[in-house]
């Protein structure tokens, strides 16, 4: 029985080599797409729904980690979420204990022996996975992403806590106490600051904003959203397993990425 796989790697020789090595080690595996960057990998994975993804982390445009996270957001079946193996160059990310924990992280140059172990583990997973409740592969991927996403900076290296947001609205600068913010939403090069009685744009990125906020109050729930946990009324899971938040003081619903779904598990 054939298994389908996608390879995302920006260096053509490395992509060809990985395909050739996999062909030797796992003849039943069929490579259905070779993608030179993260965006292509995301599109092809959604279109072809392969069972295994080999993602290079460092790629132009979109990294392998970003592509995987967005894929988790947008995946809607019908097939189960694919098994993801990250491929990365020497020291690009701290390997930590990750290397022992999973077959989902291989270092370039990839040795046959190491890849053979990954193949064995993938075969085993693909066999048992369908029997597991939904989200087995997705759960594994989320663990990987959490391990690979750089942790928050140490308190010493932190920028000042933000207490007041100065946002330009027309020809005036509005002063918004951080405690009044219901949620922050990334909009291209800006961040939209949403309060119970209005909105204002500030020229920054969520990435820069996050370390300046009190992490006990403000939670990142999506790539593009940070929400004031005190303004969350309820988290609702729909039929497809997607989480959305209902807010106090605001009519909008906020989507939760699978990566942050664990924040809303019941006690």
């Amino acid at each position, binding site marked *: 029985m054939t298994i389908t796989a996608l390879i995302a790697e*920006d*260096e*053509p*020789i*490395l992509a*060809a*080599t990985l395909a*050739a*090595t996999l062909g030797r080690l796992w003849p039943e595996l069929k490579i259905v797409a070779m993608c*030179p*960057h993260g*965006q292509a990998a995301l599109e092809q994975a959604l279109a072809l729904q392969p069972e295994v993804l080999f993602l290079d982390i*460092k790629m*132009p*445009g979109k990294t392998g980690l970003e592509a995987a996270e967005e894929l988790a957001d947008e995946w809607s079946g019908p097939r189960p979420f694919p098994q993801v193996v990250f491929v990365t*160059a*020497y*020291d*690009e990310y701290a390997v930590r204990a990750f290397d022992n924990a999973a077959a989902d992280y291989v270092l*370039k*140059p*990839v040795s046959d022996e190491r890849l053979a172990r990954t193949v064995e583990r993938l075969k085993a997973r693909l066999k048992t996975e369908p029997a597991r409740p939904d989200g087995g592969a997705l759960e594994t991927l989320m663990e990987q992403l959490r391990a690979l996403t750089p942790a928050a900076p140490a308190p010493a290296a932190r920028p000042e806590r933000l207490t007041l947001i100065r946002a330009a609205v027309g020809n005036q600068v509005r002063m918004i106490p951080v405690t009044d913010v219901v949620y922050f939403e990334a909009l291209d090069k800006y961040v939209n600051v949403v309060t119970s009685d209005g909105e204002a744009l500030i020229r920054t990125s969520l990435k820069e904003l996050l370390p300046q906020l009190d992490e006990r109050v403000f939670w990142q729930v999506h790539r593009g959203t940070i929400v004031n946990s005190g303004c969350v009324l309820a988290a609702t899971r729909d039929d497809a397993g997607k989480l959305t938040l209902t807010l106090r003081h605001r009519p909008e619903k906020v989507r939760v990425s699978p990566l942050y779904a664990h924040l809303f598990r019941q006690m």
Partner: protein
Amino acid sequence: MPLSDSPVLADATIPSARSRFPWRRLGKDAFPLVGLVILCALIVTYAFGDGSDFLASLVISACIGTISFCIIDGVRLAVWGESRRPHWLAFGAVIAVGVPAGQIFGARLAGLLLGMELKQLHTLGTTRTSGMLLFTLLATGGVTLYFAGRDRLARAEAAAAQERARAEAVERQALQAQLQLLQAQIEPHMLFNTLANLQGLIAIDPPRAQRMLDQLIQFLRGTLSSSRSQATPLAQEFTLLDAYLGLMAVRMGERLSYSFDLPEPLRTVRIPPMLLQPLVENAIAHGLEPTIAGGHVGIAARREGDLLLLTVTDNGRGPDAGPGKEGTSVGLSNTRERLKALFGERSGVTLDAAPGGGAIARVTLPMPDKHE
């Protein structure tokens, strides 16, 4: 308004290490004093006196000497510290006070110890006292001269040691710069990536693997030998960059193209080795690699009067796009520092937006006088 804890107060109660009195030094200075006290006692007993009562003379000499010494050396160390040289006039005044005081109080103290009245020693105005005072003054002057000479020697030695340390530091910095240069040139990341490509090519395209290996050898040999030399001809620099870009082109495939423009008369002009390498690395890492389409890097050399102009131009994201990868942007500032150290203000490095999009790094340096 409540007063906050004043840091000034806290500072005042803790004497800083620098202003502490150098007791250890005072103790060291006291060693020659012992010899001098014995010498003075001998002179007083056998040259001025009849050879009797050496012990009494010793006690008197010790008391006078110690008090004089404590006043003079104590004031010197307290006011000028160990390393600074006292002003001769001020120091003379200290001696002028210290000697009579030592004479009077020392004699009284000795009298108490010996159980007799030494009037002629501590009552000013008698001939005997004046004579003894002169004697103490001479002794003190001698010892002062001795100390001054010794301190001058110590100061000269300290200055020499400082000079040596400075020379050593300069040398160490030069060595460190060389090492850093080496490390920068052969970035492990680049090496591992190249090896990964080589490993792949061996399996799928052996002739190409052979060519890539040749380029890697050329690159390694060039970087390792050039970082040890003072200057390399431009032609050799360009060959090295060709090898580097060749390796990068294997990795990036269609996404990287490059070109060189080196006029014939400039081929033999010598420049500091590996000057352009970090700028070319920047053009790729920050300009081209982050873009999906990749692009072109052009390297050129031009003579402008008595200046040499070297440019690295790319058509990537441009200088305002921010760094393309994690890591500090040391390439540009390092190059600037290097040139400044070698050529001073007549050299410079700038990074601007290129007319056709992307970035252009310009290196300007004085045209070397002779070609070798």
